């Protein structure tokens, strides 16, 4: 910074600001066609980066160079003259100070890596999004019509199986255990237990006499209604047992059986949203149900273990 400055032509230090400035100008031009918001953003970018660029360029003019000690650097050429260095005698001799701290090759390789990273990101992010997001979006299913109310005599459990999505076919068949609890304050009450075991998701079976001769088919969801006399419910996989309110009585399940909301429209019973249950106190229409968002099997919804699953899965 001392005597060399006067001898060599002045070169501005390498700078990234012009790139930002150029992006800003490009945004302004694009914004003229697309929307004024883009143009405004571009103007802001161009202004900020232009300001920084000008400030950079004029740094030497605005204030006298500070009195800095010359940078100490490992000597590149004066180390004991290895024999191979003799061939370089014809090359112009540069002093250490002339070798820039941030040479063009470094800038170019960093720029190549950076641009490659940006391009890779632009490609990867939407692809990863497509890989993951469809599992979590549009998961809400239409409410299934389980047919007229007279198919559900009071106090009797009915095995109701239906196709969640008739277009998909039998693989989407689900099973509910539905019991009409009669009227509570002139409103219908139903217990609707989802057959998926809350241990690890196997199909819970009713322990009792299934009256398969009285099976009825109704509705466009291929609903099959079969009366059953239930003493309790059991899971064949790992032996989880539940009582008729869905509370765990034995085995590994971590909560009570999941349930579904219901609604009655035009004399027909409709399934509603599913939800998970911590525990049920009481029975039938007057049962007090600890209700939580619909959780994956095996996941605690209450107690200290619920802290392990802080984020509810969407869909």
């Amino acid at each position: 910074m001392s005597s060399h400055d006067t001898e060599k032509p002045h070169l501005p230090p390498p700078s990234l600001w012009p790139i930002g400035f150029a992006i800003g100008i490009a945004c302004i031009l694009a914004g003229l066609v697309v929307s004024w918001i883009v143009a405004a953003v571009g103007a802001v970018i161009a202004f900020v980066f232009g300001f920084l660029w000008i400030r950079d360029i004029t740094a030497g003019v605005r204030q006298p160079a500070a009195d800095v000690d010359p940078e100490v650097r490992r000597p590149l050429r004066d180390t004991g003259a290895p024999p191979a260095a003799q061939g370089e005698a014809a090359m112009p001799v540069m002093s250490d100070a002339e070798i820039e701290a941030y040479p063009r090759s470094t800038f170019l390789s960093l720029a190549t890596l950076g641009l490659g990273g940006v391009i890779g990101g632009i490609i990867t992010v939407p692809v990863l999004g497509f890989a993951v997001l469809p599992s979590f979006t549009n998961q809400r299913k239409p409410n299934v019509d389980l047919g007229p109310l007279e198919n559900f005599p009071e106090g009797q459990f009915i095995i109701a199986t239906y196709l969640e999505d008739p277009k998909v076919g039998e693989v989407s068949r689900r099973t509910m255990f539905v019991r009409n609890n009669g009227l509570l304050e002139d409103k219908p009450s139903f217990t609707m237990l989802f057959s998926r075991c809350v241990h690890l998701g196997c199909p819970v079976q009713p322990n009792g006499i299934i009256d398969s001769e009285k099976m009825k088919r109704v509705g466009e969801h291929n609903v099959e209604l079969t009366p059953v006399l239930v003493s309790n419910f059991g899971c064949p996989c790992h032996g989880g047992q539940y009582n008729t309110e869905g509370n765990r009585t034995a085995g590994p399940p971590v909560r009570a059986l999941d349930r579904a909301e219901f609604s009655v429209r035009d004399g027909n019973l409709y399934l509603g949203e599913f939800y998970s249950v911590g525990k049920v106190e009481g029975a039938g229409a007057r049962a007090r149900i600890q209700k939580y968002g619909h959780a994956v099997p095996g996941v605690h919804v209450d107690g200290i273990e619920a802290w392990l699953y802080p984020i509810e899965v969407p869909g």
Partner: protein
Amino acid sequence: MATTARKKSARRRQLEAVALYPLDWLEERSGLVGGIKYFLFRKVPRDTGWFHTLGSATLTAFLVQAITGVILAFYYKPDPDSAYESIQAITNDLTLGWLVRGMHRWGASVFIILMFLHMARVFLFGAYKYPRELNWIIGVLLLALGMAEGFTGYLLPWDQTAYWATVVGININGTAPFLGPFIAQFLQGGTAIGQNTLSTFYSLHMLALPGAIMGLIGLHLYLVIRLGVTSPPWSPEAAGRDRPPAQPSTNGREGLIRPGSRGGANGS
């Protein structure tokens, strides 16, 4: 014998040159021949034995899985309505289909078992120690990916066992803290097992996981070639050290770990 060989030597040299010309052509332009020679004819310790073949056996099992898997994919239909039927057709109708499916099915177990045996050999021989720790880590990743292959492949026959085993397996994933429920829902491709699960598992089973396994096998082999094969623990040429071969043991303790006389007999 020798005279005839000498008599035919000019002709023989000519023939050899003709036979070797393509190899020389390839070698000059790619260096592949030298590379393959370097890979196949590298030096190994004197007293390596059958235990050291477990890695190659695992590789062979993987190659069998890859090849039979590609052929099964000719005829398999990853769709809930036809997956089971297509497997039945492969097994019962297609010529030799039972054989290829059987190789893939039983080969899967062979692959996993061989991985464990190979791992046990490496562990018991102490072959995971410096400088081969990284190769152990890659091996663990390969084991995990191999198990994932087993898990995703188990669903594909789409029978009751496959379906409910996968339900249970996915829900076990779902009980992992914090991200578990998300992993479960991602694997299911929705809130329950269905057609998305089948195609997701099929894609993972035959594209993503084998690709990752092949890449890691490449790294694994690269490190094996770079670092060399370890001697057995009873070898006089102990790994990573220049010890004089089979010195008479003056130290009573040494005989317990490394019986010098036996090692010497093995070595020579």
